[in-house]
């Protein structure tokens, strides 16, 4: 067997009870309120599978700068085949200490820890964004895609999150961030997104107004955009946005209708849509 690499700036060790405060602070710093308070207690402290031997912390000058939680589970590989496996839960590294190999060392330390030798799980499973897994989990932790055939179903009930994005955008306008970029604009865009409420998007000099409108109650929109949710997400994503938009237009998954003058206005102000749609929209 090879030897794991060691970094002299910090050391990895198993979690101890008096680490709780520091680990909580670190996790809160990295994940925000998501894992704070009640949720942290539920996920770790009161979890029947919580095992301090399967939590590794990275310490630098006595301060915890990284942690990785594993939870031991009874996992079914097939209906007749059960094994012990660990859920690789949250891996958190202090933003100040990133790109120094802390995450990688944590992954490796857990794999060679005494706790693991005793528990003897067959494998570790975890859920991750495929693009992050490709650059971090796969090369550092030997992760590969599970033979998973799960579908994710989604139903939009309202556009509240989009309204909140628009509100933030309008605050930036009010603070003068996009000075002059919206001068003289007045454009009504109707989004017809399959399996979602209709959405009216009004761009004016003062910013963006968003409303859910039923068919017939909308003043005639200048531009109508028809798409499905998947296309909308791809076009809104920061990566390959223009390529995705071009592809979707080409294959008819994204349709844009309006008078030439309105379409030119939309083209000039498409950055407004991108500002709003590139954040979480549902």
């Amino acid at each position, binding site marked *: 067997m*090879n*030897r*794991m690499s060691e970094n002299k700036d910090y050391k990895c060790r198993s979690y101890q009870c008096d680490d709780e405060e520091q680990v909580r602070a670190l996790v809160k710093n990295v994940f925000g309120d998501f894992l704070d308070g*009640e949720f942290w207690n*539920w996920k770790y402290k009161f*979890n*029947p599978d919580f095992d301090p031997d399967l939590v590794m912390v990275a310490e630098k000058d006595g301060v915890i700068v990284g942690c990785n939680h594993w939870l031991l*589970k*009874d*996992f*079914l*590989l*097939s*209906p*007749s*085949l*059960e*094994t012990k496996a660990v*859920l690789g*839960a949250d891996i958190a590294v202090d933003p100040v200490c990133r790109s120094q190999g802390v995450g990688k060392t944590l992954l490796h330390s857990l*794999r*060679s820890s005494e706790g*693991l030798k005793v528990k*003897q*799980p*067959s*494998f*570790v*499973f*975890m*859920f*991750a964004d495929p693009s992050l*897994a490709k650059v971090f*989990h*796969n090369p550092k*932790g*030997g*992760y*590969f*895609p*599970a*033979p*998973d*055939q*799960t*579908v*994710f*179903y*989604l*139903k*939009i*009930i*309202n556009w*509240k*999150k989009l309204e909140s994005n628009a509100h933030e955008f309008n605050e930036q306008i009010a603070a003068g961030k996009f000075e002059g970029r919206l001068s003289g604009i007045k454009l009504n865009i109707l989004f017809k997104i*399959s*399996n*979602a409420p209709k959405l009216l998007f009004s761009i004016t000099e003062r910013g963006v107004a968003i409303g859910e409108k039923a068919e017939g109650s909308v003043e005639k929109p200048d531009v109508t955009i028809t798409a499905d949710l*998947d296309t909308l997400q791809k076009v809104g994503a920061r990566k390959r946005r223009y390529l995705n938009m071009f592809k979707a237009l080409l294959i008819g998954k994204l349709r844009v209708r309006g008078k030439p003058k309105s379409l030119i206005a939309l083209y000039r102000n498409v950055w407004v849509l991108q500002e709003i749609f590139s954040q979480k929209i*549902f």
Partner: protein
Amino acid sequence: MTINKVDSQNLVAGFGAGKYEMRIFEEGDEAKIVKLFAKAYSNYGGYVRRTPEYWKWCCLQRPDVERDGILVALEKDSGEIVGYVVAGKSGNLWELTCPPHPDKKKIVSLLLGNAVSYLEQKGVASVNFTAPQADSVIKQACKEMGFATSAPPKMFLSILNFQKLISLMANDKADELKEKFSETLVIRIKDAPFWLSDTIRVKISRNEVAVDDNARDSTVQVDVDYLTFCSLLFGNLSSFGAFARFRLKVRPLSKTSTLLRLLSVLRIRNCWSFQLSDFG
């Protein structure tokens, strides 16, 4: 069938439609729910086994789940639970379970309709859940109720103990292996990560199937890389596909056919599917 709006304060027997009714979870339902889950997922792998204790923790005690967000569908006549849904205020349906049933579509629609209404009342912006791709009934019910499909969160695996894993898989198929093969297979993993042994020996005889990390006495030797081998074991890649892509080197070459058959017996063949509750 019409789907009634959930009044989470006053869910009563008789609520729902036709032969089925809905009610809020009650203490003591856990055991039935766990049985129902096992029945619904009896053809799948890739999830954490549910026990009443585990289910309590991962659904009932989840911070965004209130008791009135756990709805069960019952058959009116027998009072038997035929499905349930766990709706969290975050908009996640952590579990939506309905095993095969002649009225499965009705039951799924009833569960979904009530869960969506409940979450609408709670002011959530979107509702989402996961289900097996092969479940055409859920797919049809979702289509009719305006659900779209989206890219699911992706599950990844990393092997911690090859011997243990292969031993389990081989023992699960021991009868078939013992009947069809009499070989000592030595697998060398070229780029095995440091925490794994790079040699695995699978000894199959009439009497036993044994797995260890000894390299001696092989009748078939295979050189393979870590990712290819994992993909073969978990069914992401067929053994023939790996061989055709020159990702498997077999010695002696005359044993290629035996090896390909052996690997295809060994590998996991069931579909994997997980519920959102497996996240935590």
